[in-house]
């Protein structure tokens, strides 16, 4: 499949000259500048672009991203709870330009894996030696009867931060006291496993103060969920019986929605909501499917050491869209994968061995403004699969004094400042 092998690259660089590595200045005209194109400027793509430049400034990196501004999904539940302004989650791409990344605001509509180039909606063509695709998620709209992109303007998903977040916030503030908020949770695997449950807490935080007779009902096809014990205890502590979770075993799987009647048909019962937040089942972002990078699961299989696609050579897929062993689909995971991928790309383009990878994930959830919980893991590659290191990682303790939960809430916000500065400065 590959036309641009390591051997060819070394030849292109002028034989022995390539063996000298990066730090040695190469006379002009001898070394061909390697080109990397990154598709998608979120938690994965922005990091891959920056770190490739950081590790080897000889590589030309072009980041192609549809939106001029990035709005973070992590911490966007705080916008729903009224604790945060969406402006604090919004970032521009100027910082990446400072690292010498060429930023193009356009949408990639086609990838020609054989000819090594991508095509954009704006009519641009970009050739690459290595391509990094970080497309995020798309929804399986068809999975819930009566739901679709247009209905999402009435029953928001708010699972891509931005206008959808603001729409859901507006609906929650307009809710009639006594009416309920329904959250339709997705099946595994999906972006941000603790997200729907943090969202329930944040909405309940708002309702407690402003709509004391209203409740949050989570309809879930799953029988268990991320940080379940910590969430359940935290919900009870702050919101009493204001949050109700109906798991798959209790008929929580939603079959269809009726936006006119504002009802949700679950397996056993029909639920009525004043606000209905539908988080649909998910798959890799559209370009991954168009380019043939996804398999029948809807996600992209990759070599978990380098994130190179198993379906097309010289194309790497990172972030929510890829299948990354035991790593969850989270912002931190995408950041960590972006770095492993950047190292692998730089190594490949310089004819160096790819070092043994190491990955981290940390996910904070805010149950109340001063009450945070977390899950963390360090991962290694074992028999080609990403697995957590035994004896490390895990959840916040089930029992902990107030100051520990407060500290974790502070850390959640500091984490956000650091991970976004890692992306955009």
């Amino acid at each position, binding site marked *: 499949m590959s036309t641009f092998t390591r051997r060819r690259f070394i030849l292109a660089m002028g034989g022995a000259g390539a063996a000298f590595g990066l730090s040695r200045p190469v006379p002009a005209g001898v070394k061909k500048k390697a080109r990397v194109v990154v598709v998608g400027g979120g938690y994965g793509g922005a990091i891959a672009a920056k770190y490739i430049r950081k590790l080897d400034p000889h590589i030309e990196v072009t980041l192609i991203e549809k939106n001029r501004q990035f709005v973070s999904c992590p911490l966007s539940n705080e916008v729903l709870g009224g604790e945060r302004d969406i402006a604090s989650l919004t970032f521009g791409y100027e910082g990446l330009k400072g690292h010498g990344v060429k930023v193009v605001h356009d949408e990639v509509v086609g990838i020609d894996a054989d000819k090594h180039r991508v095509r954009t909606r704006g009519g641009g063509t970009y050739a690459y030696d290595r391509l990094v695709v970080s497309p995020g998620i798309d929804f399986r709209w068809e999975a819930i009867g009566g739901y679709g992109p247009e209905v999402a303007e009435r029953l928001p998903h708010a699972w891509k931060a931005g206008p959808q977040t603001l729409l859901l916030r507006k609906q929650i503030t307009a809710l009639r006291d006594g009416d309920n908020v329904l959250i339709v949770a997705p099946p595994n695997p999906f972006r941000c496993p603790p997200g729907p449950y943090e969202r329930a807490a944040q909405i309940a935080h708002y309702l407690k103060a402003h709509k004391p007779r209203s409740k949050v009902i989570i309809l879930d096809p799953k029988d268990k969920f991320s940080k379940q014990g910590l969430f359940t205890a935290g919900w009870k502590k702050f919101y009493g019986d204001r949050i109700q979770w109906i798991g798959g075993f209790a008929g929580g799987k939603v079959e269809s929605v009726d936006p006119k009647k504002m009802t949700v048909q679950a397996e056993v019962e029909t639920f009525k909501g004043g606000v209905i937040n539908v988080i649909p089942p998910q798959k890799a972002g559209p370009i991954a499917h168009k380019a043939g990078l996804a398999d029948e699961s809807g996600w992209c299989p990759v070599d978990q050491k380098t994130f190179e696609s198993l379906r097309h050579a010289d194309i790497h897929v990172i972030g929510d869209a890829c299948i990354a062993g035991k790593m969850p689909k989270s912002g931190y995971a995408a950041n960590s994968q972006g770095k492993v991928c950047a190292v692998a790309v730089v190594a490949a383009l310089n004819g160096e061995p790819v070092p043994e990878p190491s990955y981290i994930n940390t996910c904070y959830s805010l149950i109340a403004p001063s009450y945070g919980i977390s899950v963390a893991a360090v991962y290694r590659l074992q028999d080609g699969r990403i697995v957590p290191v035994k004896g490390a990682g*895990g959840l916040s303790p089930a029992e902990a004094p107030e100051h520990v939960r407060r500290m*974790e809430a502070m850390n959640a916000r500091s984490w956000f400042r650091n991970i976004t500065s890692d992306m955009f400065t």
Partner: protein
Amino acid sequence: MKTRLSLSIALALGLAMGGAQADRLRMEVLAAPCAGCHGTDGASAGTSMPTIGGLPKEYFIGVMQKFRDGRRVSTIMGRIARGYSDEEIARMAEYFSTKPWKPHKAKLDPKLVAKGKALHEKYCANCHLAGGRYAEATLPRLGGQWPDYLHTQLVECKLEDRPVPQPNLMELRLGKLSDEDLEALAEFYASQH
């Protein structure tokens, strides 16, 4: 003969430099994920997360070992530290020790800084030299660290179950300081870029 000799020198050089690059990538792949919480190159952008870029190697190793075996209690660092071997911690220490120390960007209260300065001179200056800018194996860099982080750590040093183990003199002196004093000290050290 001459050509062959210079070729072999060139090859040896190339291998050595290639090796240095490979080593750099090995360090990067291990240490760069820390930036998710501690900022690019360990320069923290967040108030409660410490800057770790520019810390002395020996100090970094000592702290990570304490986190790992539970001698130093933490919310999350222990859970992560347990994922690394001694050799990996040493490599991370090497990586971060070569990064420049970049001070915090918080806004400070000059009154508190002045109060902290007096307290520092009375109680702390014997060990925490150069306004807390000096660091070594058992002495953390305080000058220019995030004030919120310093304050929380100082408060924790005073707790009964002491999450951060302290030498005897430090414990005795901490006993003489109120929470307000600790806040002033944190502001003072933060001011010492």
